[in-house]
């Protein structure tokens, strides 16, 4: 069951999704549903003995292409609609003990190509207005499956966070004639203190307005709106800068660093979004090796984030752990 309930107070949808557990027999203790199915072994989600990168519809989706009618009837004040959309799981590698940060850059490059392909396919669906590619990583943010994977949600509307960015971008363009993120990028470069990593096509920075201590934004130097706008070189440079950032994350405290990774692209509702500018945002929940940043009263209830660190200092700290990315031409070209 999945449905969308309207919150008239905030003017946004809430997805209500309940699932019946249909598992009838218990898997072994070390069972990972995202590993390949070993010959003669307990069946996993993937009915093959190996894979490179796999994408599939989530077994317990919040949104689905063929949703059942809502469980309750809506009213004028409380509209409800079926939870139509797509929830995909993306398995990055068959190696259970790996992580995106530990994968070679060639594998991340393959993933960039797969993401691009998913965006291109999902944006064609007429009920999809926004394709959201993301990864939740680490027990610290509640991820129970450690197998390296990400997700893609295809929403039937533009989600609020993106809508705000779009409005700010449009207002900025109306006022100045320029792209907001192009201007942010220029200002970050002029200042320089918050830049974490850089290559020919991308800049990674802990932005001036970071809400989390180690919040990194990756922005393309060229004004583009989606993965599908990238050149072959930009796809490679994107893989490189992602590797630089998340490998530095892992070195920071010498642990597999938890994060949320979110891709902010143009909507797919067919309207023009030339004023928007692609970027990736990372929200790591850690303040220190052992301390979590909680979304408490001010953050959750008022919307004011309290960051008790200086982005200029955190960027310097993270930058010290960035190392160059070396491509192995035999492996992925």
């Amino acid at each position, binding site marked *: 069951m999945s449905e969308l309930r309207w919150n008239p107070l905030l003017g946004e949808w809430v997805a209500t999704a309940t699932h019946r557990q249909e598992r009838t027999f218990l898997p072994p203790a070390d069972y990972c549903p995202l590993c390949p199915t070993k010959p003669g072994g307990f069946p996993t989600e993937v009915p093959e003995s190996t894979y490179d990168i796999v994408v599939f519809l989530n077994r317990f989706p919040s949104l689905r292409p063929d949703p059942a009618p809502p469980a309750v009837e809506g009213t004028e004040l409380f509209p409800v609609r079926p939870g139509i959309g797509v929830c995909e799981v993306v398995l990055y590698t068959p190696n259970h003990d790996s992580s995106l940060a530990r994968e070679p850059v060639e594998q991340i490059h393959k993933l960039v190509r797969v993401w691009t392909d998913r965006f291109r396919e999902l944006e064609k*669906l007429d009920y999809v207005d926004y394709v959201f590619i993301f990864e939740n990583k680490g027990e610290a943010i509640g991820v129970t499956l450690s197998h390296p994977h990400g997700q893609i949600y295809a929403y039937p509307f533009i989600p609020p966070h993106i809508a705000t960015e779009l409005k700010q971008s449009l207002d900025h363009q109306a006022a100045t004639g320029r792209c907001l993120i192009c201007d942010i990028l220029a200002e970050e470069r002029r200042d320089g203190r918050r830049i974490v990593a850089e290559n020919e096509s991308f800049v990674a920075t802990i932005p001036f307005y970071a809400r989390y201590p180690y919040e990194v934004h990756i922005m393309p130097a060229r004004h583009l709106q989606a993965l599908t706008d990238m050149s072959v070189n930009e796809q490679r440079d994107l893989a490189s800068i992602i590797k630089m950032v998340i490998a530095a994350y892992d070195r920071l405290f010498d642990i597999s660093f938890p994060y949320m990774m979110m891709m902010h692209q143009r909507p797919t509702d067919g309207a023009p979004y030339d004023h928007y500018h692609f970027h990736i945002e990372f929200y790591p929940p850690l303040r220190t090796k052992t301390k979590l940043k909680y979304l408490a009263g001010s953050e959750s209830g008022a919307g004011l984030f309290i960051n008790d660190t200086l982005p200029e200092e955190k960027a310097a700290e993270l930058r010290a752990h960035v190392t160059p990315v070396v491509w192995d031409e035999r492996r992925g*070209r």
Partner: protein
Amino acid sequence: MDTESTEWTREIPMHRRRITLADGRYMIFYTFGDDAAGPDRPASERREHGDAPGTEEHHV
């Protein structure tokens, strides 16, 4: 089984193979390599095309 592949300029080709799971969900295997069949194509024949949204395309 239909496997599609198209070459990117200067990149190794990416291949997609779509199967339908027992409960009707789609699953897409992405492989990379010059072999048009993809490096880990299984011997077993699987039928493609489930209730997958969208249509298959040829620029992958």
